[in-house]
């Protein structure tokens, strides 16, 4: 098990390989469909938000206000990442991301951006909203809440030992491509 704390250096990211189990401590920014489209179209990050050497989490959490008016994340698993494929490579490049957390994997353009700019794709367990919410220790801030609505907003989350698996590394390795190719060959034998 590898432990990483944000901000993360390029060297540490380059050391990761497909199949490595990783636990993350530090800051995660959520961002999904609306945020990716907005940034890709030239939108700027709100003041106080920097993705440099950081991690974006494809997630639309359930967040409620507790009795004291503080935000509390009550469910926070990953959403399907492939929808961000048209935008992700550009955002890795422009904003200096070191990690993208999501589920289901991404395509060739993201894999190429991983390699060129030193980033990895980290797979969280889809549907495991409670186990992952337990790792979120606090909500530091929220941005674009009005503009994009709660699931699509940028939530700045403080996490501890957030469990993920490297499924696309910075050396061109993709578990998703490998499993697809193998399963396609196995299916061909059975038709």
């Amino acid at each position, binding site marked *: 098990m590898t432990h990483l704390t944000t901000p993360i250096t390029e060297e540490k990211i380059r050391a990761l390989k497909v199949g490595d189990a990783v636990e993350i401590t530090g800051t995660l920014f959520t961002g999904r469909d609306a945020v990716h489209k907005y940034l890709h179209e030239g939108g700027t990050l709100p003041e106080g938000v920097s993705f440099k050497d950081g991690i974006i989490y494809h997630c639309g959490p*359930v967040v409620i206000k507790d009795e004291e008016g503080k935000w509390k994340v009550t469910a926070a698993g990953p959403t399907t990442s492939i929808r961000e494929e048209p935008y992700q490579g550009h955002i890795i490049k422009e904003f200096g991301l070191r990690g993208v957390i999501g589920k*289901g994997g991404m395509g060739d353009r993201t894999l190429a951006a991983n390699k060129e700019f030193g980033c990895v794709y980290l797979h969280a367990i889809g549907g495991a*909203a409670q186990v992952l919410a337990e790792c979120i220790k606090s909500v530091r801030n929220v941005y674009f809440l009005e503009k994009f609505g709660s699931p699509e907003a940028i939530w700045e989350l403080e996490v501890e030992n957030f469990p993920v698996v490297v499924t696309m590394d910075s050396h061109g390795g993709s578990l998703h491509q490998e499993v697809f190719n193998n399963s396609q060959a*196995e299916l061909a034998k*059975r038709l």
Partner: protein
Amino acid sequence: MSDLQDSLVELIRRTSAEIPDDVQKAILTSLENEKKGTIAESAFKIIEANIKLAKQKSQPICQDTGSIIFYVECPVGFDQITFEETARTAVTLATKKGYLRQNSVDSLTGKNDGTNVGPGAPTVHFHQHRSSEIKVSLMLKGGGCENVGAQYSLPSEKLKANRDLDGCRKVILDAVLQAQGKGCGPGILGVCIGGDRATGYEYSKQQFLRTIEDRNPNQELDALEQDILKTANELGIGPMGFGGKTTLLGVKICAANRLPASFFVSISYMCWAYRRQGVILSNESKIEKWLY
């Protein structure tokens, strides 16, 4: 607050937080079958821990609390208008309590007003029957698995699929291959052979009201279900698409008549976070019995 509203809020809470027993059993069996020390095994362990934690905390199993689909079987004379209005109020209330995510977006403006109520949301299907029983089933179907659903029109030259059961088998297995782990596998397939584009998908979803262990009374369809399940689990896609032995937990197939010109095979995919529950309501709209 009416008794019906109370009962529906409780139905939503339990559906969102608790996996039905038949699904949990299938997940635990699959966990035992996965190879020790693999990422497939650790994925299953997180899934198992998540199921326990959600139930214990009474919180959503998955943050995508999905499309809200009610199936109501009711006697003649049942007030469907009051039911639907109460269901909408119950959904908004359950959203405030955090049992449901603010999950409904205006498709034209992109606005999410946070109520989970709007055109087509929630969906309520009514079916009248001769019995006096009021049966309400609820399915919460997440977007990740909905997105990997597929509808094929036979013949498919690309997949060499003709208008017969072997052609159906080919396109169903193609849907499994294309889905990989994107729908939060291990998944469950609901399939309808025939129908039109709308009813095909609708009937395919209704297959999810069947329990994992039940068997199809139609022998041909039963054989096809067992064959697809076995073959899919030989492909090595595994939980989350990590590779592994369990790609599907179950396959449920029905058939509907079609037009001579059309031959659709509609495939819905349900994620492992299979949220489906149901209740029998008393005449006073109190919960008498849980169905799953």
